[in-house]
Structures are given as C-alpha cells and as structure tokens.
C-alpha cells in the first residue's frame, strides 16, 4: 500500500509544461568544478499567487525556496526593496532586462503558485539578465501536502540549468537520533524537514551507511548483545542481518559499485578492516597489525580506502591502496584525526580533528596537501558529503545538544538544519537516486 501511494505521488509530480527557452540548452553559467566558485547576484521577486491559495502556503513556499537557494551557496539574493517592475508577474513576454540590469542582478528567478482543488501547481522562469535571455521555465503539479517537495524539485532544476549538474535538494540525510531515549536511525530532507525514524527497535542503532543506489541502508545494532551489521530496505522496510561475527561488525562503507562492504571487525586483540561481499558473506581481512583500525571510506574509483588507525597512539588517517596493498599515512598534524569521508568527486577527504575545546571539520587532498579547516564554532564531528561533492553535513554541539549543520567545502555556511532538544548525530548524506 505504502509503495503504491509513493508511486502515485511520484507520478503526480511529473512536470506539467515546459516553456520553451529562447536559447539553446547546455550553457554552463556556473562551473561548480572550479576551486573557488564565484557567487552570482540573483533577483527573486515575491512569489506570485496566481489564484486563491490555502492559508500559509505562499509563506511556506517562500521560506523553503529562499532556504534552498541560500544553502545552494551559488547566489547572493538581492534586496527586494530596489526591484523594478513593481508587483508585475515577470514572464518571458514582459521581462525588462535593462531595469533588472540597473539593480545589478545577474539572474532573475520568478515563481508563480496556484491551488486547484486538492492540488497545487507552481512554476518558475529563470532569466540571464546580463545576456538578456530567458534560460528556462517549468511548471509542477501535485498534492498540496507535497508542496515542499515541488519547491526542492524546482530549485534542483534551477541549479541544473545554471551548473549543468544535479541539485541536492531532493536527496535525503540519514542520521542517528536519541529522541526516543535510545539511538534510532532517522531520515530527513536536506532542509531538516520530513523527519521520520526508520529503525524503531528500542535498541542501540548507529552508523548509517547508504547503498550507492540509495534504496537501502546499512547500520549497526546491538539487539543481539553484539554490534551486528544490518541492511534495511527503505521501500519494503525489510531488515536483513548481514554480518554477526563476535565483536564489532560496524562502521561499514559500501564500495562505489555496490559489490563490496568495507567494515571494522575483530582482529586478534584489536580491530581490523575487512571486506565482505554485498550479501555480508566471505570476509577478507584487508589490514593486519597490532593497532585498531576503523571507519573505512572508499575513493570514488573504488581503488583506495581511507581509514583510521591508532598505531601512532592517537587516531590518524591512512590510505590503503587496493591494487598494491600498500598503506600510507595521510594526516600528520593534530593528535586525533578521525571520521574520514572521501568526496564523491574524489578530490578531497573530509575528517574531524581534535582541537582545544572540541573537534573541527577539515578537508585534505588525498595526496596530503591543502589542509583546510571548515568549521570554527562548537565541537563538530562526523562529516558526510552530499553527492555533488560540495556540501558537507556534520554533527555539531554548541553548548547543549548535538544538531546537524551543513557547510560547503569552499567556505559556505554553516546552516543549521535540525532543531530539536534531542541529540542528532552521525549524519549520512544519501546518493542521488538512480
């Protein structure tokens, strides 16, 4: 039943109409592959109500839209007080590019909203003010309760039009919450909305890890008085016990091709990195020495695994090269470096380093150069990359409880995305759904 409903909602959201743009598609306005992205000035006039709207809907759409655009970290939003064309709904027919150029906008985004019975439709038009061209426009229709999802879809489309790459606002973030007293795995949208717990077994559930297809999650649960590895399928809610060797079956990481699982298991009086097949069988021991190893993370080409080992007393990050079997040390500064997360673009590894007063999120290149500190305030742990290789979600404690925050690797944010009295930790950003 659940699945049928999901399918229905999905189809209801299929784009209704595409306004033909004046220019050929495929121009990259913003190169997010460049080391330092220049942010663009975006004019976003007030959302136009194209008919009567349910109470509060316009404000909600406005809020979600603005928040997504800010978190995308591609724009400076221009001050509306100076906007030309009054309250006129700007379309490709009446746009006055000169007037928008005069307020130094580089892009113009206009959004209309209309409710019809139980459904709602929303549309956007995106203009390149500098070139004086209409870039694209689309309309979406769906159930009223799904209006936030429609806005996320719209922002993702705007970003795709400008950067040529997929946006992140329809992806999910898994995390650990203690709101029920024990630790459960929960899911939420990127903006912190639509939260729901997916484990709910009253036990201790930790370390969520997405399958590369985004359809299932690995996590570790203590239900059988041992940290065992489970796989939870999101559509069916089926849970499968994958690995239950005595000792930890934990801190799992799926290989990018989904064929293998790297994880921590018991060695001889220590913990080692092992590889399992996708069914959790046929363990192969990857590392072998006296020290503890934990937290494997794969390079996107599947040829290297970064992990944490404590052979130099404190935990440091090392890289295992699968073709040669060689291990090299990556981090040297700081006494305590942990939680490596290899960017899906491959160029950086995010990690947490202990500083005076707490932990901070850093990035480092896989060759050990270009170490950058990304966080300043509070104690910050467990970084996880968005599939765009640019945004990072992490857990932060600033006096009270742990909440989830988002930053970009090039200095944007932080933006707080959860707001609770419980502790929200160990975020794992989902891949793009295939």
């Amino acid at each position, binding site marked *: 039943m659940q699945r049928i409903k999901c399918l229905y909602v999905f189809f209801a959201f299929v784009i209704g109409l595409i306004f033909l743009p004046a220019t050929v598609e495929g121009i990259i306005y913003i190169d997010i592959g460049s080391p330092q992205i220049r942010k663009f000035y975006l004019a976003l006039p007030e959302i136009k109500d194209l008919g009567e709207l349910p109470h509060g809907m316009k404000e909600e759409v406005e809020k979600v839209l603005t928040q997504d655009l800010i978190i995308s970290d591609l724009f400076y939003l221009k001050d509306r007080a100076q906007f030309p064309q009054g309250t006129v709904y700007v379309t490709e027919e009446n746009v006055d590019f000169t007037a928008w150029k005069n307020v130094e906008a580089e892009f113009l985004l206009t959004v209309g909203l209309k409710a019809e019975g139980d459904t709602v439709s929303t549309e956007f038009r995106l203009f390149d003010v500098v070139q004086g061209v209409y870039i694209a426009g689309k309309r979406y229709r769906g159930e009223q309760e799904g209006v936030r999802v429609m806005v996320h879809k719209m922002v993702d489309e705007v970003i795709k039009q400008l950067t040529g790459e997929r946006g992140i606002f329809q992806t999910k973030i898994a995390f*650990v919450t203690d709101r029920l*007293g*024990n*630790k459960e795995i929960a899911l939420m949208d990127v903006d912190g909305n639509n939260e729901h717990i997916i484990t709910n*077994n*009253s*036990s*201790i559930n*930790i*370390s969520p890890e997405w399958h590369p297809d985004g359809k299932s999650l690995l996590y570790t649960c*203590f*239900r*059988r*008085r*041992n*940290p065992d590895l489970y796989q939870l399928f999101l559509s069916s809610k089926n849970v499968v016990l994958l690995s239950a060797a*005595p*000792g*930890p079956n*934990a*801190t799992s990481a799926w290989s990018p091709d989904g064929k293998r699982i790297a994880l*921590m298991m*018991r060695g001889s*009086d*220590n*913990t080692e990195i092992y590889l399992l097949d996708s069914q959790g069988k046929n363990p192969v021991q990857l590392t072998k020495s006296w020290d*503890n*190893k*934990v*937290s494997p993370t794969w390079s996107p080409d599947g040829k290297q695994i970064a992990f*944490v080992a*404590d052979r130099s007393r*404190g*935990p440091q990050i090392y890289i295992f090269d699968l073709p040669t079997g060689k291990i090299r040390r990556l981090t040297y500064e700081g006494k*305590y470096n*942990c*939680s490596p997360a290899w960017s899906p673009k491959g160029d950086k590894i995010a990690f*947490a380093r*202990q500083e005076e007063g707490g*932990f901070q999120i850093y990035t480092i290149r896989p060759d050990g150069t270009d170490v950058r500190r990304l966080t300043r305030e509070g*104690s910050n*742990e*467990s970084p996880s990359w968005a599939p765009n290789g640019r945004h990072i979600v992490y857990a932060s*404690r600033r006096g009270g409880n742990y909440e989830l925050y988002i930053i970009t690797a090039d200095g944007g944010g932080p933006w707080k995305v959860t707001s609770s009295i419980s502790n929200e*930790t*160990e975020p794992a950003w989902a891949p793009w759904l295939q």
Partner: protein
Amino acid sequence: MVRKKSFVLVMLLVVISLISFTGCQYELVKKKRLSPEEERALREEQKREEEKRLFEESLAKKEYSGIEGEVWESTQLKDIYFDFDQYDLTVDARRILTENAKVLVAHPTVIIQIEGHCDERGSNEYNLALGEKRAVSAKLYLIKLGVQGSRLSTISYGEELPLDTGHAEEAWGKNRRCHFVILSR
C-alpha cells in the same frame, strides 16, 4: 609444660560439657575422628559456602533496553577506569582487576562479559574500536592473573551507553570504563 597441662585441662572441660549434651554425642565422635587435613578442608568448604552465599547476595539482574537476554551484575566485580583515548591499564585499574580476578577464581563456574565504554569525545566509530581495545586489555590482564580465557568475552559499547550524560570531565571520567556483567553462573 604448663601450656600443655592447661591445654589438657581445657580440653577436658570442653569434653565434659559436650558429653553433658547427649544430643551432641554423635557429633563429638565424628569430629574427634577428623584429621587436621580434613578439618582444614571442612573449614575451606565452609568458607567457600560463605563466599558463594555472599556472591549470590551481591548479584542483581540487569536488563538492557533493546538488547536481548538478561545478565547479572555483582557488586564484587568493580568497574575500572581509563584516561582519555587510552586503553592502557592504570595502577588503580590493575589493583581492581586483581580483586576481580580473585572473585572469578573463587567462582569458577561464572562466565562474564567485559564491556568497554568510552566518553562522548571523538568519533562514535573510533570509540567503538577503543571500547573493544579497553575490554581486551582487561581480559588479557585477567587471564594473566589466572582466569580462564574461555570464561571471558568482550563487547564494545563505544560511547553509546554513558553512565553519566553530562558534557564535562566529571561525567567523561565515569564513562571511560570497563564494566563486568555475568552471562552465566
């Protein structure tokens, strides 16, 4: 000589007084026949019974929410504590483990699980490894003190089961510990 005489006198008095309790006559006869070795064995048996009784009294059932099975805790098996990010046993920890080992040697049927715990600082993942190493440190030391390895299992709870949920050293110090639970008596 004087000591021997007085000893005989005392014994005589004891015997007379015991004989006067006819109900105890049989006991007396039996006791008289015990060799010193047997007496020692009897005393040791009584001591063992007493230790067993005290140990039984020290036990309390412990249920962990969301974790299958029931275990016991004994007030005779004391927690040991660690420094931050360390799994080496401190002098205090060794002293406590020596006491714990005596208890385990005295109760050879008892099978325990050593739980390794950490404070909240550092990654949850690394702390899971650290907790494992702490439990192993305690296990190896108990084996060195004569406890059979087959009676000792380990589990790491990392930072997931803090004793004190505070966010300062006072709480952290209590949480960096090995706790001992009894799986089977």
